[in-house]
Structures are given as C-alpha cells and as structure tokens.
C-alpha cells in the first residue's frame, strides 16, 4: 500500500450468483476459474489490486464482459463488491456507511457515463447544478458554479436547453460539466466517448486532455479502445475475465506485453507515438558523431534522423550523456515488428 496512492484497491472481488459470500468462503477466499464454472457463479472482478496515484490518468481497458465496468462500479460502490478493500484518503470505502458514502459522492467524487445519464426533464443548467442541489447548495451559488462549469466545457448559451436538443458530443460535455461541478478529488469516466462518432470522439479526447492539463485530477478512465488508452493514459490496466492481466505504462505494455492476450491488443498500437528511442536502444555505447538522439524521444520523432543515418546513432540521456546506440535496422524492427518478433518479444539486442 503506497502511502502516496490516492486510491488503493486490494484483493477486490465481485461475484454474481446466489450467495456469493458463502461461495467465496467455501473456496478459502480465492476460488479458481473452474470453481466458478462448476457452480454457475460469475466472477466479474477476481482478486484485483492496484493503486491510483494522485494526478495520474489510470486507464482500465478490456473487451466487453471483461469486468471493467463492474470494477469501476465496485470502486464507486454503485455495486457493492463481494470482498476486498478500497482505501481512499485513509478510509476503507467498503466500510463507510450509506450516509458517509453519500457525503463522499457529494464532495469528492465525480463520474461520467457512457450514455451520458442526463436527466431528460431538466435543463442543461439544472443538470449541471444537480449534484450541488442535492447537497443543499443555495440556488444562486449552485447556478453560478454550474455556469462556470458550462463555460469550462464550452457550452455557454445552451444553459436553458434540454438534453434532447443537444448533439451526443454536447450531451457528454454536459455530463462532464456535471461531474466536475462538485470539484471532485477523483474523477471516474466510464467509456465516456464510446457512444460518440469517431470524429467527435477525437475532438472530445482533445477536450478531455485540455481540461486535465488545467485541473490535474486523479482519474480512473474506462475504455475498450486501446488507441484511446494509449492516447490518454499515464498507465493502462488490461482486464480479462475479471482479472487485471497487466498494469503498466503504454510503453512498457508494448515493449513488454505480459502475455499473448496483451500482445494482441498492442499489435495494432501506434508504436511510433508510444515507444521511445531509449526503450529500443542497445547498450553498446558509440561515440556521439554529430547529433545524437534523445532517449526520451518517441520513435516517430526520431525516425527521419535514424533512418537517414548509415552508422549507429548515439542515444543520449536527459543530461546529454551517451547511454547507448540505435541503428536503422533496430528502428525498422521496432516500428514494424514481424509476426515472428511479435511472438518472441525479447528486447532488441
């Protein structure tokens, strides 16, 4: 349990079926996959542990049915988990009372939903002001705050519209404004852009990055789109059949996938924008002839330079000291891995 973690989940289980508690106890708190199959139980989240660091964007990704939606609902306690612990600012979320939970949601949590979850009978302004209304803020204060939020997401002038009068992208902006209205410490986004058209999705991702640059929230973001995960995430956790298969930075995930399942996801990833030169460089130090390449540079940025050079190029750390070298062949192999290389993802020599 890292003391600096904003949220730390330990051994989280969410089991569906009759008497899940008894089932868990019967198998010593750690039933195997075959136990689930034999007794017709569903292990939507199985023994998941991870930390969310302050100010990071943690992406949970997986295919539908992998348990990612259940996981976020377990952390937010929209669905109570079967077992485990979730430490949030020093208290275990699973042990707080219903009243305390309501208080936490009113002040410290915000959530964005895939299908927006807007209240159809309320105006845009009243939707954004809703979390403030239920916690009892006076009308003027909450409407002022809601206006600020609408300005933040670029929806000024639409405050008296009803959700049905807005496009999908605009509706999700309302959803985002609402989730930020209480000034949450932690921000949950459950596939926020999956219901949108590809072009709008791109635009909303940019918008999201812009907001995060300003707000620096701690974020748990769910998606099934690996490209989105790579684009937005500081770290990515991949889920499969209720388990967290790998939790790593996008770069680590592509260069060192934990298993074939993860490799399948990463095979179509934009490697040039994720991998840095340092991660493919060899340790053989060559004298810096002319300009070297920064270890932190992404492959795409360094490609022209490396490919143009016949000799190995020096790789430099942040201080400008040579720490290794990179060749044209290494560059090509890293950017266009063959099937063979895909199966044996040993580090390049």
């Amino acid at each position, binding site marked *: 349990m890292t003391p600096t973690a904003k949220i730390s989940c330990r051994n989280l289980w969410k089991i569906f079926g009759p008497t899940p508690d008894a089932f868990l106890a019967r198998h010593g708190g750690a039933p195997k996959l075959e136990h689930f199959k034999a007794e017709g139980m569903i292990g939507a989240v199985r023994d998941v542990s991870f930390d969310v660091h302050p100010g990071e964007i943690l992406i949970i990704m997986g295919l539908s049915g992998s348990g990612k939606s259940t996981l976020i*609902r377990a952390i*937010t306690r*929209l669905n109570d988990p079967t077992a485990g612990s979730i430490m949030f600012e020093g208290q275990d979320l699973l042990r707080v009372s219903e009243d305390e939970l*309501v*208080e936490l*949601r*009113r*002040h410290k*949590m*915000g*959530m964005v*939903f*895939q*299908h*927006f*979850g*807007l*209240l*159809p*009978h*309320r*105006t845009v302004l009243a939707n954004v002001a*809703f*979390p403030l*209304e*239920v*916690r009892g803020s006076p009308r003027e204060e909450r409407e002022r705050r809601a206006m600020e939020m609408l300005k933040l997401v670029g929806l000024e002038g639409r405050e*008296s*519209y*009803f959700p*049905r*009068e807005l496009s999908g992208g605009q509706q999700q902006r309302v*959803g985002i404004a*609402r*989730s930020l209205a*209480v000034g949450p410490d932690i921000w*949950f986004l459950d596939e926020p852009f999956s219901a949108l058209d590809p072009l709008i999705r791109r635009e909303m991702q940019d918008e999201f990055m812009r907001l995060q640059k300003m707000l620096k929230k701690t974020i748990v973001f769910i998606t099934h789109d690996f490209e989105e995960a790579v684009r937005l995430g500081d770290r990515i956790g991949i889920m499969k059949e209720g388990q967290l298969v790998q939790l790593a930075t996008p770069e680590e995930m592509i260069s060192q996938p934990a298993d074939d399942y993860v490799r399948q996801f990463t095979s179509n990833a934009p490697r040039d924008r994720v991998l840095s030169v340092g991660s493919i460089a060899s340790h053989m130090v060559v004298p810096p002839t002319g300009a070297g390449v920064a270890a932190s540079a992404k492959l795409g940025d360094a490609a022209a330079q490396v490919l143009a050079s016949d000799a190995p190029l020096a790789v430099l750390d942040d201080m400008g000291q040579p720490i290794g070298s990179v060749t044209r062949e290494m560059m090509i192999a890293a950017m266009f891995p063959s099937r063979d290389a895909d199966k044996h993802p040993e580090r390049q020599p």
Partner: protein
Amino acid sequence: MTDTTMRATADRPSVGIFGPHILVFGTFVVATVALAALFPPLDTWPEEWVLPVREWVTEFFAWLGAVAKPVTRTIAWLLAQPLAFVEAVLYRGVPDWGLKPLPWVAVVAGAVLIGHWLAGARLALFAGSCTAYLAVFGLWQDSMQTLSIVLVTVPLAAGAGLALGIWATRSARADKVLNAALDLMQATPHMAYLAPVVVLFGFGQVPAMLATLIFAVPPMARCTILGIRTVPSDVMEAGRMSGCTTRQLLWKVELPAAQQTLLLGLNQVVMQTLAMVVIASLVGASGLGQKLLYSLQQLQIGKAVEQGIAITLIAIVLDRLTRAAMHRAPQRIPDGTAWHVRHVHLVAFLAITLGAVLLAQVLPQLSVLPRNMTLSFGQPINDVVRWISRNLYAYIKPVRDTITIWLLLPIRDFYLWLPWTTFIGFLALIGWYLGGLRLALVPVCLLGFMMVAGFWTPLMLTIYLVTGCTILAIMIGVPTGIWASRHPRGAKVTLTICDTLQTFPSFIYLIPVIMLLQTSDLSNVIAMLAYATVPAVRYTYLGMILVPKATVEAATASGANARQRLWKVELPIALPEILLGINQTIMMALSMVAITALIGSRDLGQEIYKALPGAETGRGLIAGIGIAFIGITADRLIGAWARRRKKDLGLA
C-alpha cells in the same frame, strides 16, 4: 442434453394440442360421459353437497360492516369533503353563502386553454366544442356531477397506485404479493366490487367513488412499476453518483425520468374511472351514468344516445388531454420572462372566469344555460329507431333467429348437457399435457370451487356466451387482421377503428344493440363482440406482420400459391400471436359479461346484478370472482399453448 431435447421434440405433436393424444382425450371423454350416466353425482353436482359459501361471505361482510362502522364512516366522511368541494365549484355552488358555481362559459374556456397549453389549437378546439356540447344539449348538470366524481377519484387513485407501485419496486416480497392481487383485482368485473362496498359504505356518491378507486388503482400501480424499472441505468447511476439519498433519488430522478409511463398510467386511471360511472350508478351515483341507465332500461334510445355521446366525449377529451400531456416535452423559456407570460394560460383562464362571473350578473345565460336554449336530437333518433323496428326488423329478426338457433342455442345446450367431470376433466387434461400438474390443477380448483359453491349453471351460461362471442370474434377478427396485414392503407384505417372502439366506455355498445336487436342472447353476444373483436384483429395483424419475409419468399420460391402460403406458412407461424389475441378477446368478452347484465341475461353477470338490491354480498362477490376464474383458467391454458408453439417455432 441434445438427446433429451430430441426426444422431447419427438414426443410433441407437430400441430395443435391433440395430435397423437387424440386417443387419450377421446377415451377420457367417452369414459366420463359413461360414468356420469351411471353415477348421477358425476354428472350434476347434487344440491345437498353445495357448500353455503355465499351465505358465509354475506354474513362475514354484514359482521364486518357492523364492526367497522366507525372506520367506514370516517373514510366516507373524508372522501366526501373533496367531492363536496369540487361539486360546489362545478355545478352546485354554495347557496348558503350566495356563491354560484363556475359559469359554464368559464369551464368551456378552461377546456380550451388546457387543450391549447398541452397541444395547441387543434386540441383546444376539440376540447372546447366537446365541453360546449354538454351545455348546449342540456346535459350540463349531469355531466358536471360525473366529472366531479372523476376529478376527485383520479388523483386519489393515481396517488394510491403510485404509492403501491413505489412500494413494489422497493421490496421483492411486496412486488410478488401486489402482482397477484392486481391480477385478481383486474380480472374481477367492476360490478362485483359494488356488493361489498354497499354493505360497508351504503349507497351514494362516496361508495361509488370507492368502487371506482378499486378498479382504477391497478393500472397506475403497474405503470409506476414499469416506469421506475425502465429508467435507464446510466441515469440512475448518475443520480447516485451525484450524491442523492434514496429519497432524493426517488423524487428527483426516478419519478421525473419515468414521467411518460406515469402519465400513461394516469390516462388509464381516467379511462377506468369513466368506464365505471354507469356501473357505479347502480349503487346510487347520480350523474350521466344514472340517466343513461334509466334511458336504457326504459328503452328511450334517443336520450340514451345523447347521454352516451356525452360520456364518450368526456372520455375522449380526457383521453386526448392526458395523452397530450404524456407527449409534451418541456419547453425552453428564455430567462427573464415575466410571470404572466410564463403562465399565460392560467392568466387567461382567470381573466375569462372573472369576466364571465361579472357578465353573468347581466346575462344569466352565461352562468347556466336555460332549458329553452338547449337543443336535443333525441326525437329524430327515436324516429329512426321506430322506423328501423317497423321496416327493418322483419329482416333483422330472421338473421338474429338463425344465428341464435343454429349457433348459440346448440352451444348452450351442449354446455348444459356436459357432465361436470367431462368438462373440468377435459380442461385439466389439456392443462396437464401443456404444463404438468400445476396447470392441470388450475381448472380443477377454480371451476371446481364455483361448482361446489353452487354456481354451475350460471358458470356454464357465462362460458357459453363467451364461447359464442369468441367464435364470432375469430370469424370476423382473424380475416380482418389478415386483410389489414396485406393492405398498408387498410391497416391504418383498421387500427384507427380499433383504437376508437376501445376508447368508448364499454356500456356504450349496449345502445345500438338494444336499438337493433332488442333483448336476446345474441344482443349480449354482439355487445361483447364490439369490444372483444379488437384484440383478435390487432394480434392477427401483428402476427402476420411479424412472419419473417425470407420465410414467405422461400415458400413462394418453392412454388406455393397464395392460398398455400397462407395456410401452410403464414398462419402456423403467426399462430402464437393469434392465440394471444384470442386470449385477450376472451378477457374482453368476460369484462363485458357483467355489463350486458344491464340489458338482461342469465349468466354470472346477472347474479352480480341481482345481488345488489338485497345486498347479498356473497352471491355478487362469488359470481364476480367466478368470472375472474374463467378468465384466469383461459389465460393460463392459452398462454401455455402459445408459449409452447413459440418455443417450437424458435420465436421465443
């Protein structure tokens, strides 16, 4: 797994429920008939074995009425207060204080403004002219009496239904209990509630309101449950993550988001309440219903038509208004709009009312339309009826008699001849075959109870009328549905007619039937038919539309002609839907049974009707429950059959 499925499919006959089992059924029928001939108690349940259930129930309610008097008095008093208020506003005024009721002009203006507020000029015009009809044809006071009951009952029923519905969504056990109770409440005809209400609360407006309440609550409760359950999960979760407490979630998220379905429930409540006004007049509710009942019983067709149209117009206006409310989306209002602009309809209403009250001082016609200024088309209608009976009756009578003699009477005599063992046993056998022991016990327990309670003959007479009605409904409804499914334009017209037929309060159908056929079994069947054919048409249409196009094309490609396609492909695939339609037809016919008692019959409906004046609670209540039991038996058997067909066809 596959093995057992294969075997199960192999056991099952491919079409119909008889198939290879015809031998079993045949043997059973012959055996029971023979046994019944040998042992008379197996043919007719001996009178000395009849349990005096009806006496027990009557005595119980008499006792309850005496014991619960303080409670029932309080309830009656509480209900009487809002009713008195609305009546004072609409037609009575407060003579002691010299206050007059609302001028009729103001009420018409109110209808126009509500119509305009909800859906614009067209509905405004419609609501206004319908309301004006009530005044112009001299039915104002009766209409306002009826409207008062409706206006007080509807909010009460809606509130009670809402509360029950919310309760059901909060507790699984409540949901179970409530569902069973609602089923029985809705299957029992309205009239059956009157007897216990009379014993507990006496005669008058308030008991009528109470009986109406019982019938109007279930649809609201059902709509509430449905509405709350269908709020999108995203919306619910957004509410919870916003920090709503359970109560805030209910009032600020669930109910507002379920608004449409709740308004549908309200619409149902209004329609049920109006359907009850004539029946409630049997326990002393005055108003349009009572007048219509008198007119019907005295065969004053002209008057009956005028009054029937008035009730229908009230029903249609309230139906359209509540529907409009349902489809009305919230309107955007720019900030800083003045109060009187935001509430322009209310302001206009207050202004018109004030104007009308002031003007009425000089022009009293604005307040109450004097009799010599009202119109009536009763006389011409009476003339038409007289002309019909003089000139056309000669043609109608043979038709009536032919159908009666060749279709109805044979069915009746057959049913009355059937030994009870054969009838109940046969149904039980079908039930056992379709759904095992549990389903077999349904007819045995329900129909058996009615027999043991001494209601066998009216039970069989009811089943006879329903059978006759169902056969005619199938003969008319199924071909109509098939025709509609082939002609898109015809379908539109047909479905509109179906909608309209169902908006009319059911007793309206008694008027033309009495007009043309006078009292007879066929009149009853036809009055039921007008109501009961609608589902046969609708479901047939739906079933035919749902037949997969590819299947029909495949049949055509295989060389089937139109006739073969219909009989060998489309009808078998549409059969489950058609069966559900027939099921609904039976329900509708049953709900009309009690109503046709108003024009004379000998079935369970008549038992209910006869039980009223003498406050024979047991007789009325058990007869009513008997009608419900027939419905439940038919519903379970046909439902099981349709489900099995659907499963066989892979449509489930």
